[in-house]
């Protein structure tokens, strides 16, 4: 194992400096090896301090990779975090993960080991096989191999491991409304937030770093702002903001999406920096959902590395990362540095390195003539600067050993003259800055190329969205401060704040003389890209300059197609370091400008977020509401098994002891048919309908007539869509002349109420009627069976329950168990039944009274399964089970419930008269009797004609919708939708089953019990 070359602990930690806390050493393990860092370290800075060069193997070519950046743009140092099976977190960027004591991490791209990689031996071969476009070329055929290939690639290339146990952490969401939201707490964002806040509007300031300040903090800048060192100004400004009551600051918070109408989502890492065992029981991460009146994006810019041969060797850094590691973390990740740059930023790395007492071998500046403060300072410090030079190739195996240097022409397209090698172990490059335009582009706005900034900047947004600071391509500190103040005031004014300009002055700062940057993306090599050593553009996906050029040669000219062909920008880093370099290479190859070539589409998320944060607290018992009736406790006490009906929990059956479901259902059926059963029917939708036009309205939405239904009577109705298909059914009672009580199916309650409302509100507002849901107000219990009248009589003495006085389909108001009740004499079982409705706060009381009084009759509670069997014995349909949205009332043989002679063309009338609805050979609801009465057909079984050849395609003639064993009929029974079924009573058809049985059944009228309806009318 040669991961840590320096056995001395933290050999690369500088003696002084940095913001780390040297009094707090933190132990951690990387690939099983124990190491120590300090509080304030990221995992990346701690690994570098311990001399770790290789942090992974590349995706396709299995090349060793090292840490390249110090932030969210890191493509290589993507680790697996976690010490136990349940706490595994894949895809953690070491540059963003704060170190804590006991942290366990490992590289993911090395299988079986990062340093000696078995795949690495095959790497070059595998690399050739998986050339550009391998997603399409290599795996297009055979499709069935895809899963196998994917498994191999995942294991070999290491895209991280999912936890195999439930996540013990919790997550939650929080909603915010604010006047001004500022994304990014760098100099521009701080100024914008403070300028807006001072006008009195509400401000929400968010930054993904644990500290504010952006680059000022990362680079520990000592430039003077308002006379104090920039890092102190940052802290003062942040304190000022945090003390204001109208300001909320969220640090450690990644804004991952900027959605329509200024709705932004942001994930706050509340406890990721704390050792798991010390975490609070509260959420690990919180997803903030933010609605802002005005949004200010001060998202800054990310430094672009230059592309050169072997630029993926460990030891190659982006210039700004060198500054951050040296000055913030007091880590010099090497001894001898070569800088290659096209702008002034490279000099800052050289100076930091030099001031840390390390050797700067040379600064190679692609610009022919260089001047300005950065150049002067470097020269003064004695750092060798070579203007007009570039480094076009790095050499080494697991670490940079040397670089090849040469003169470059003024267009930066060709290396001139002789080349020489410079020995070094660290390389820093800067190709300029790419503004972070992602959030500004999430709602569809395309970024615009700004030549003066050599970067894409946000385009004009349709939303109330502002930008300031580096994201606009203006990188000078003075500009960032000034545009920040100005933008904050503009946004506050848009919120209605007055006198905004007076509220705050622009902080003063010195401005050094800068030297204009030059455009440089791919450093030219002596060889063509296809012959030169690999020049990586997207390090995470191993996309090389040669691969991009191959794509353009193969005819891919649209940047979106190049992206998909090469996988450029597809990694978890979303191409933050590589995209613009890739675009520039495509543009150059096609002879177009970068603006013409355009960018790919930026979509949420800006960076990966955990599924846990997305789910929030909506997991486990809170995943979906569970709805309960007022009798739930009693059902639980009775040992009910429950069934989900929509969100409702309904008793399914009530097993006694270790009774099976079949046995329980048979017992419940028999008890109901012979004595009395009780069902909790509270979940049925109930709608109170009042108004002079209530009756007219019912006539329009039901297929049958309601004009003559007298107060005190109930009627069954079918509801159809405009297409003529049944979508709900139920019994509606006429409570009084202008007052009805409608019931709907349990699952259809909300839909039916909306159905009534939408017609009333949009088409028939002239009808004088009101609909109100009373589903939750009424508890409904049905007592059913020959003894139900006798049972009710024991608890109700103010209703004449005799058959003459209280007939079938009548309802009465009265008192049941001392509670005011509406009792409906309706039946879904075919037995004498009473449906008792009482206010839900009395539901448990009345249920208990019925159970107590029912003991004398052996009262038996039954669930939905028994209800289904009992109704099927009578041929009563269940909408949604025996219908599927393609069934008319005529198909159900329910023509008796359709009254086409009604004056108004009721909903469904025209639909069910369409040619297709009246044609012969439609599927129609019939009963089935299997030839072997003990065989119960499976629901969903497909019907075929007797004797048909069972070779595909087999003509299907229908299917079973409901099927049970019926105690009352002494045989199996079924309902089915069969072609032309109503004309085929007596025919025998066949059901070939999955287990190769073929069941024969006779088509019959779907009534298997009490054909003359004597029982329910008793």
């Amino acid at each position, binding site marked *: 194992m040669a991961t840590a070359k320096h056995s001395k602990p933290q050999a690369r930690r500088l003696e002084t400096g940095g913001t780390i806390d040297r009094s707090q050493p933190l132990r951690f393990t990387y690939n099983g090896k124990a190491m120590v860092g300090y509080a304030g370290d990221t995992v990346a800075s701690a690994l570098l301090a311990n001399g770790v060069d290789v942090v992974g193997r590349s995706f396709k070519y299995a090349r060793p990779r090292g840490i390249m950046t110090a932030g969210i743009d890191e493509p290589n140092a993507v680790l697996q975090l976690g010490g136990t099976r349940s706490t595994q977190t894949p895809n953690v960027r070491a540059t963003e993960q704060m170190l804590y004591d006991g942290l366990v991490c490992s590289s993911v791209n090395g299988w079986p080991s990062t340093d000696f990689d078995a795949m690495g031996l095959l790497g070059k071969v595998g690399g050739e096989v998986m050339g550009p476009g391998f997603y399409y070329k290599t795996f297009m055929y055979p499709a069935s191999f895809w899963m196998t290939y994917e498994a191999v690639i995942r294991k070999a290339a290491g895209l991280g491991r999912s936890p195999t146990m439930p996540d013990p952490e919790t997550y939650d969401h929080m909603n915010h409304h604010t006047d001004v939201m500022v994304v990014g707490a760098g100099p521009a964002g701080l100024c914008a937030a403070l300028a807006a806040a001072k006008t009195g509007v509400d401000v929400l300031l968010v930054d993904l770093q644990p500290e504010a300040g952006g680059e000022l903090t990362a680079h520990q800048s000592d430039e003077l702002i308002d006379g104090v060192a920039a890092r102190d100004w940052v802290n003062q400004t942040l304190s000022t903001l945090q003390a204001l009551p109208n300001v909320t600051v969220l640090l450690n918070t990644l804004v991952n999406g900027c959605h*329509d*109408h200024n709705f932004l989502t942001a994930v706050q890492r509340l406890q990721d920096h704390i050792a798991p065992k010390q975490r609070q029981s509260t959420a690990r991460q919180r997803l903030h959902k933010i*609605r802002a009146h005005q949004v200010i994006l001060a998202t800054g810019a990310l430094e672009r590395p230059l592309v050169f041969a072997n630029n993926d060797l460990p030891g190659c850094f982006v210039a700004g990362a060198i500054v951050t590691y040296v000055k913030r973390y007091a880590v010099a990740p090497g001894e001898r540095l070569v800088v290659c740059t096209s702008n002034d930023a490279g000099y800052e790395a050289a100076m930091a390195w030099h001031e840390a007492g390390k050797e700067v071998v040379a600064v190679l500046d692609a610009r022919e003539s260089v001047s300005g403060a950065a150049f002067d300072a470097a020269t003064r410090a004695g750092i060798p600067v070579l203007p007009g030079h570039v480094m076009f190739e790095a050499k080494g195996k697991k670490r940079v050993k040397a670089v090849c240097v040469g003169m470059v022409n003024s267009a930066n397209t060709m290396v001139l003259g002789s080349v020489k090698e410079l020995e070094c172990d660290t390389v820093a490059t800067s190709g300029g800055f790419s503004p972070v335009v992602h959030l500004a582009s999430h709602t569809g706005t395309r970024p615009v190329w700004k030549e003066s900034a050599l970067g894409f900047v946000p385009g004009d947004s349709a939303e109330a969205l502002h930008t300031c600071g580096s994201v606009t391509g203006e990188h000078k500190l003075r500009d960032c401060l000034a545009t920040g103040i100005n933008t904050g005031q503009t946004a506050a004014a848009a919120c209605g704040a007055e006198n905004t300009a007076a509220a705050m002055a622009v902080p003063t700062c010195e401005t050094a003389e800068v030297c204009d940057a030059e455009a440089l993306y791919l450093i030219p090599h002596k060889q063509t890209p296809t012959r030169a050593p690999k020049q990586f553009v997207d390090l995470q996906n191993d996309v090389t300059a040669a691969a991009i050029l191959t794509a353009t040669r193969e005819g891919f000219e649209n940047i979106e197609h190049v992206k998909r062909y090469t996988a450029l920008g597809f990694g978890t880093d979303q191409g933050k370091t590589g995209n613009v370099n890739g675009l520039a290479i495509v543009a150059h190859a096609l002879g177009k400008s970068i603006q013409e070539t355009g960018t790919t589409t930026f979509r949420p998320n800006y960076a990966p977020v955990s599924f846990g944060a997305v789910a929030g607290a909506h997991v486990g018992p809170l995943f979906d509401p569970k709805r309960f009736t007022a009798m739930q406790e009693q059902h639980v006490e009775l040992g009910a098994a429950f069934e989900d009906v929509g969100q409702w929990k309904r008793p399914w059956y009530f097993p006694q002891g270790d009774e099976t479901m079949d046995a329980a259902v048979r017992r419940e059926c028999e008890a109901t048919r012979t004595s009395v059963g009780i069902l909790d029917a509270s979940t049925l939708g109930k709608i109170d309908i009042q108004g002079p036009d209530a009756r007219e309205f019912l006539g329009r939405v039901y297929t049958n007539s309601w004009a003559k239904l007298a107060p005190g009577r109930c009627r069954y109705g079918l509801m159809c869509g405009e297409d003529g298909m049944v979508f709900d059914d139920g019994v509606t009672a006429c409570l009084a002349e202008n007052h009805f009580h409608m019931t709907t199916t349990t699952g259809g309650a909300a839909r039916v109420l909306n159905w009534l409302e*939408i017609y009333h509100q*949009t*088409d028939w*507002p002239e009808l004088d009627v009101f609909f109100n849901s009373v589903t939750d107000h009424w508890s409904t219990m049905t007592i059913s069976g020959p003894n139900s009248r006798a049972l009710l009589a024991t608890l109700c003495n103010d209703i004449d329950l005799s058959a003459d006085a209280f007939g079938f389909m009548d309802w009465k108001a009265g008192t049941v168990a001392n509670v005011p009740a509406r009792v409906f004499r309706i039946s879904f079982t075919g037995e004498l039944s009473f449906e008792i409705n009482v206010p839900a706060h009395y539901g448990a009381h009345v249920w208990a009274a019925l159970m107590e009084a029912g003991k004398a009759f052996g009262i038996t509670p039954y669930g939905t399964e028994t209800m289904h069997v009992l109704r099927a014995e009578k041929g009563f349909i269940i909408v949604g089970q025996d219908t599927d949205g393609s069934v008319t009332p005529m198909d159900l043989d329910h023509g008796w419930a359709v009254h086409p002679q009604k004056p108004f*063309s009721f909903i469904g009338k*025209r639909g069910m008269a369409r040619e297709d609805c009246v044609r012969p050979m439609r599927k129609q609801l019939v009963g089935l009797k299997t030839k072997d009465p003990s065989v119960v057909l499976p629901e969903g079984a497909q019907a075929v004609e007797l004797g048909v050849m069972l070779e595909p395609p087999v003509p299907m003639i229908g299917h079973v919708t409901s099927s049970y064993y019926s105690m009352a009929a002494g045989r199996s029974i079924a309902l089915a939708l069969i072609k032309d079924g109503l004309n085929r009573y007596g025919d025998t058809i066949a059901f070939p089953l999955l287990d190769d049985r073929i069941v024969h059944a006779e088509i019959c009228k779907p009534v298997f019990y009490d054909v003359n309806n004597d029982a329910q009318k008793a």
Partner: protein
Amino acid sequence: MFLIYCPYCKEDREEEEFHASGQAHLPRPLDPDNMTDEQWGEYLNFRKNPRGTHRELWHHSAGCGKYFNVLRDTVTYKIHGTYKAGEWMELPDEVEESLHATAANLALEPTASTVTESSASGTEESS
């Protein structure tokens, strides 16, 4: 996630309080029985899917329970306005212009203006 002004509650509300109910201004024909199958099929099944402004019916399901109309751009998702059921709202002038521009650029068919006109006449018939 839209922010939608409910014309009944008279304030902006989060999209999750609402349900979209499809194209607005689809008056139920007054005499369905005398329509041909084709005419009825047209009413029943055919809906506009414009690129540009669209009139939609939305339901404030978690709030006041009322249905209302939303005039929305299906490209930018900008909501030009909302108005109560049974009412009508003209396109803001600048919106029409930008739409023509968009339609010309993208050679759209049908143009946004024909969409508007036919919707408008539909409303008059029903009132």
